[in-house]
């Protein structure tokens, strides 16, 4: 008897707590952001967070919980469970790395929560593993490479030397480049992930008859490679996806990066009103130039706010439809979602230049217009 009444009391308490919660939530959206804020890749997560905060500034209907995943899949999974179960978030975002996204995103959407990816775009989530609740605001992983291959073929590059770390994102990227590149691949090296010395590889590049080096080495690996390449006296052209030449990294590479061509969906000099405002606001707020990660974080918040203006997040179907419209002024210019909830957008070719004392990127052309990933055909939702 005593036990029964205790259970009854507890359930009433739980029920009323739930109701109070629903009340407090009318029209508001609670966002859980799990991103990398410590360790080697922290710069990326910090930029996504700062871009998001900048766009969401002053929006009282948007409540944000931020946690650091330390770039570890197990920690990201724990944090996601905590956010969904005890923080009761409606929408999640923030993850930088594909392996973490694969660990977290399917579980989030399976529990009926929206996920807006500000960076990682693994092919599995664009194809068979797509979900009505999952939206990628950045890119599918292959986009920059496919556009790079197209641009290289159209701009007289005949013989390339490919280099990437020996892990899925590295080999996938090179496969993406080869799928659209029409010239010869004269050499291909897959290095250890986290390698810091590239003397041996540079010697092989020197010995090859390639006219261009195309590489993907994210973070510190790219910094090391570019500094060593500049000191080696090899004068072959250098190309890559934007990840190795983004604003956070360029300061550390310095003049060694000048002249490098890289593909990106965004650049700080893209001439549209949203971007001009974003670049100015970001510099005023944080005192540094924004990176592409910051642009993605900013767009993610704009997308979310556009959907919040049209539908209540509790009405999942309406909110999904509102997100699909992508009715916001992206800093990238034209932006739309394909049926698999991945972007249709232009991919630009940028060149690293010096503006005064600052090493930065400048758009020199469009590498692929209205680019869309190839995995959408496998997506059934």
């Amino acid at each position: 008897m005593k036990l029964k009444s205790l259970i009854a009391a507890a359930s009433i308490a739980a029920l009323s707590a739930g109701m109070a919660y629903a009340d407090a939530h009318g029209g508001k959206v609670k966002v859980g952001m799990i991103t990398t804020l410590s360790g080697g890749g922290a710069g990326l997560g910090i930029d996504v967070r700062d871009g998001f905060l900048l766009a969401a500034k002053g929006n009282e209907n948007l409540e944000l919980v931020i946690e650091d995943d330390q770039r570890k899949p197990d920690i990201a999974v724990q944090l996601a469970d905590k956010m969904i179960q005890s923080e009761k978030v409606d929408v999640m975002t923030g993850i930088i790395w594909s392996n973490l996204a694969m660990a977290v995103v399917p579980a989030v959407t399976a529990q009926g929560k929206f996920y807006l990816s500000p960076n990682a775009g693994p092919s599995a989530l664009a194809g068979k593993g797509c979900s009505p609740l999952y939206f990628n605001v950045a890119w599918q992983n292959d986009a920059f490479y496919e556009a790079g291959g197209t641009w290289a073929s159209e701009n007289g590059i005949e013989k390339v030397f490919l280099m990437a770390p020996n892990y899925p994102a590295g080999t996938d990227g090179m496969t993406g480049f080869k799928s659209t590149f029409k010239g010869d691949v004269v050499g291909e090296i897959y290095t250890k992930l986290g390698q810091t010395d590239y003397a041996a590889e540079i010697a092989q590049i020197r010995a090859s008859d390639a006219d261009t080096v195309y590489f993907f080495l994210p973070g510190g690996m790219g910094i090391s490679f570019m500094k060593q390449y500049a000191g080696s006296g090899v004068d072959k052209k250098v190309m890559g996806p934007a990840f190795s030449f983004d604003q956070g990294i360029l300061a550390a590479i310095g003049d060694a990066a000048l002249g490098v061509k890289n593909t990106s969906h965004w650049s700080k000099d893209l001439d549209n009103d949203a971007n001009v405002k974003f670049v100015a606001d970001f510099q005023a707020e944080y005192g540094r130039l924004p990176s592409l990660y910051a642009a993605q974080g900013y767009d993610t918040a704009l997308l979310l706010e556009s959907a919040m203006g049209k539908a209540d997040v509790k009405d999942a179907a309406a909110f999904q439809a509102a997100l699909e419209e992508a009715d916001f002024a992206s800093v990238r210019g034209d932006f739309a979602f394909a049926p698999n909830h991945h972007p249709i957008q232009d991919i630009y070719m940028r060149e690293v230049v010096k503006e005064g004392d600052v090493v930065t990127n400048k758009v020199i052309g469009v590498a692929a217009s209205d680019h869309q990933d190839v995995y959408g055909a496998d997506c059934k939702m």
Partner: protein
Amino acid sequence: MSLILLIEQVLNGLQFGVMLFLMAAGLTLIFGVMGLINLAHGSLYMVGAFAAAAVAGWTGSFILALIGALAAAAAAGALVELLVIRRLYDRDHLDQVLATFALILIFSEGTRWLFGSFPLFLDVPAALAGPVMLPGGILYPLYRLVIIGVGLLVAAGLFLLIAKTRIGVRIRAGEADREMIAALGVDISKLYTIVFALGAALAGLAGALVGAIQSVQVGMGEPVLILAFVVIVIGGIGSIKGALVGSLLVGLTDTLGGVLLPPLFESFMQASSANSVGSAVASMSIYILMVGVLLFKPSGLFGGN
């Protein structure tokens, strides 16, 4: 593969080995003299690189940056010894590993707090930038040659210090029997602080030298630390000579393995799978070397007992 390319790769291996020696020498001294496993040695490498980048940023001078790196790493080493390590000598290795692992985390987050999360800029000085032509038509980066030179000089200096000077005699005596030299009136705790600061300064020098051609970022020391442990296991724990031979062996094996193995596998496999299998075996090559050495010499090449 042409001979020129091979010679260039041997030079690369030497340069890598010499850099490892600067790390491993300090590690093996500290382990040999004090019996301490210092996982935080990689953090001192990072301190050196960050100090060099900061000083170079303020003054624009690479020489001052190197001096700053040596001073900062030695000071950090001495401070850590006085505050933390001193309490660990009588503990077992597990306690030492735990405490020095904690130091890694403290150093990493402390560095991020001071310098931020983005990698710092540190470049090769203009006088040493660019390649030079070696006899035989080999184009090789001058700065890497300088690293080889500096490393060999430091190795020679270290041998002289250990073999010819009073402090060297005390270090060797400390390795052999620490109770006895304490009984003979040598201030053992001061000796320990000096050895620790010396090892830290060498790690800091390595960090600063390598920072100019790599990325100066938080956590840069840990991959090098693992290799340095492999080196001292191969060379024999506590032996400077072992550290030198071990470093060069590991440097050459790692570099040449990465270059020669993929083509070797290509001679009897399909090109695409040979490439990935070859790269995979190449990354294992130093550990295979370590197993091979330990099979025949269980205490390392120059291990005493």
